[in-house]
């Protein structure tokens, strides 16, 4: 039993509960309308198109506000045009202060789904691509910024001003695989569609369906494939400095000969191997899953800290135990 008490297993239990709450929460907690939701500003991809969702992500109100409200600043109505966005970001910042980017690693339904697919891939003995090479990463990493800037902010804003069609009012939701996943999880197949009403919506729906299938196939052999291009990461990283939960590194010379942390990182953050002195290294791609801390073989080099408190620290003993559990030889 003791062997199951690892950070990863604890995280999976939390993920499972979060998945049930975010996908089926309206059934369990009577949270049917937006007024009943806990926040409506979640830093995790929980979808409002899922009619049973317990709460939904900040990207939805942000797109709506940029589409319908923010353009009002050109009419001189600055306060009422920007107030809803400030309120959404205010709620978002409060959540980031509490759990920071752990919303991705511990709460996101789509992140959990991809992890489960990866486990299935391993069980099916599909050869795993442990890490993506740096060249690939350099190409992939900017995509999330592009998606965030254009699909969450710029296109909705331009649609609101009338420069582009209203079908670009919430383009990120139109391609989001979480919309398809969470609705399918409730038995609703209506979101897996190709829209033939106009060219823009057709392209967006084709991207969404294609991305959903691609994500499932890739999750069988690559860890967290969609997370690498998820626009939630850039939005979180804007505010990550205020988060109480963070990853801190106090590196030493030992780090130069060891790259366990980077190898175990599901997001392939190779910069984590850099020698830092007691520095907050919660990178843009970090989901605060804690695997780097679990698999660091040295005492107190990597830590998950909450404010000034150490929650988990790397240690030789913990690493030995963790390694045995991973290999299935722990007794």
């Amino acid at each position, binding site marked *: 039993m003791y062997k199951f008490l690892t950070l990863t297993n604890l995280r999976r239990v939390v993920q499972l509960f979060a998945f049930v709450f975010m996908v089926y929460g309206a059934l369990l907690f*009577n949270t*049917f*309308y*937006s*007024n*009943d939701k806990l926040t409506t500003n979640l830093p995790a991809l929980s979808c*409002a*198109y899922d*009619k049973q969702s317990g709460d939904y992500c900040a990207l939805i109100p942000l797109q709506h506000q940029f589409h319908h409200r923010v353009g009002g600043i050109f009419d001189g109505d600055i306060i009422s045009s920007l107030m809803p966005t400030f309120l959404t970001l205010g709620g978002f910042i409060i959540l980031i202060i509490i759990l920071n980017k752990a919303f991705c690693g511990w709460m996101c339904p789509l992140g959990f789904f991809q992890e489960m697919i990866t486990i299935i891939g391993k069980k099916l003995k*599909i*050869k795993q*691509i442990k890490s993506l090479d740096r060249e690939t990463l350099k190409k992939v990493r900017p995509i999330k910024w592009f998606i965030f800037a254009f699909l969450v902010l710029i296109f909705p804003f331009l649609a609101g001003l009338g420069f582009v069609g209203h079908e670009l009012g919430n383009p990120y939701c139109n391609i989001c695989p979480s919309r*398809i996943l969470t609705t399918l999880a409730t038995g609703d*197949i*209506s979101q*897996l*569609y*190709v*829209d*033939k*009403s*106009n060219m823009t919506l057709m392209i967006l*729906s*084709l991207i969404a*369906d*294609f*991305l*959903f*299938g*691609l*994500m*499932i*196939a*890739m999750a*069988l*052999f*690559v860890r967290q494939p969609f997370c690498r291009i998820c626009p939630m990461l850039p939005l979180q990283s804007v505010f990550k400095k205020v988060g109480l939960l963070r990853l801190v590194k106090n590196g030493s010379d030992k780090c130069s000969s060891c790259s366990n942390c980077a190898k175990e990182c599901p997001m392939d953050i190779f910069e984590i191997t850099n020698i830092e002195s007691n520095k907050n290294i919660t990178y843009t791609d970090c989901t605060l899953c804690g695997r780097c801390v679990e698999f660091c073989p040295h005492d107190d080099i990597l830590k998950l800290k909450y404010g000034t408190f150490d929650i988990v620290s790397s240690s030789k003993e913990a690493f030995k135990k963790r390694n045995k559990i991973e290999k299935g030889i722990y007794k």
Partner: protein
Amino acid sequence: MKKIILISLLSLFTFGNEHFYLLPHDCEVGKKVAQNNNTHSHGSSEETAMYQVVGLDGSWKTTSFYLLPTLERQELKMSANLVTLSKSTYGNYHALVVNGQKENQFFTAITYIDNHGKPSKISPIKLTSFKKGLLEIEPNPLPREHDRYTALKTYDFILKFQGLVLANQEIKLLIDEVEEVIARSDENGQFSITLPNNFQNVSDKRRENRAKNFILLSSFSKDNKEYFTSFYGEYHVNPTSYWQSIPLGFIIALLGFLVGVFIYFKMVRHV
């Protein structure tokens, strides 16, 4: 002569089937008031602040009110069978309620109007379950954000009498002046309806398709008193019946999966 016989026959069939229901009144005055009220309702094809109570004549004593999302009640004046909405600055669902009485007969006609505005911070569940009349059809629940009444979808309701659930009563659905018994309330007062797909000349341009009206009706007799109720709503074309293809969606997702498999074989060759 034929006409007289026909009217007599019709009146025989409709005797005791009193229907009172709300419908938007598509007049310029109503639209102007809606403009002044700054009403921007969700999903409604025509924005009007004026509603008519169909079936009402001058012999009925009526009261009408507008229940805001905050559950604050604004009394409304009726002129003949017309009622005009007052201004509300709140977003989310509002209830327009008309209650009427004539001797031993009572009716309650209700519709829910979803406006943009400031948050009320009160759940619409409290608005729907708030007692608004003697006999009432309560949506369980109203469509939430990113949803609206749509053809071929099933919706749940509860029939309540004096705030308590009312079992085993007939529910009629009235669309395009055609009325049919569609459900019966169960022991918890609950019933479900599936809205029909009866739109004609549907355009692939979604905004060109007008919504259709549907009215749910029920009645109940007790102690020589008759109670009638109606719920008015608008329903829309189901896109998956026309311009959204789910089978094609599955095919594209499958294609994405196959491309993922192709990438896998390409990547493992280099590992």
